[in-house]
């Protein structure tokens, strides 16, 4: 468990190196999400995305990346919304320990 000082006011990790699977559980719980297998699949995918592209994805590329890596069934915004309600790219990035997506409106 990380203390509250490890997170910024919006619940993003201050130091990305602090991330671990148990930290992901902690962030998810604070967001009211119980992580299951489906969540973890996307979280790993988000971390792969970050390793490959050095940026957090917007919604469109996230959907495309899911489709390419996990198949058409999961490459859908509805599926992602069912796991990470509201704003899947932002919420997923937060739980996966990625930087805050920069350019939201």
């Amino acid at each position, binding site marked *: 468990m990380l203390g509250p000082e490890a997170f910024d006011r919006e619940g993003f990790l201050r130091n990305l190196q602090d991330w671990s699977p148990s930290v992901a559980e902690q962030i998810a719980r604070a967001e009211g999400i119980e992580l299951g297998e489906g969540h973890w699949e996307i979280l790993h995918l988000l971390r792969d995305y970050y390793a*490959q*592209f*050095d*940026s957090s994805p*917007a919604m*469109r*590329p996230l959907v495309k990346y899911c489709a390419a890596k996990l198949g058409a069934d999961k490459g859908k915004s509805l599926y992602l919304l069912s796991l990470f309600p509201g704003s899947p790219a932002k919420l997923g990035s937060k739980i996966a320990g990625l930087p805050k997506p*920069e*350019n939201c409106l």
Partner: protein
Amino acid sequence: MSTPTPRLLLVTRSAPYGASLARSALDTALAAAAFDRAPGLLFLGEGVLQLLPAQDAAASQTRNHGKVLDSLPLYDVSQLYVDATALTHYGLQAMALPAAAQLVDAAAIRALLEGCEQILSF
């Protein structure tokens, strides 16, 4: 040209590190694409240096410009144009380019500038 000219053309003329104009151009491209206005991206002059492979930004603890460029296809930014004269100028004729990239000479650049509706110049 094999693809229609884009409505919005971003001209990017800076090397990727140093000043931040190249990054601003790329961020603008990603934002436009995220809002369903995928732009064309013209790498002109010094801007072609953004395409160098094997950039390793870890040493300078900054965002890897080359890696972010790799995400353009996922944003459906597929109209990439590369200044052929500048490649020659830097001795990079043989450099591997993104799959979607088209080499353009001065006449093709002119056609791009005239074919689009709006230009943003970085």
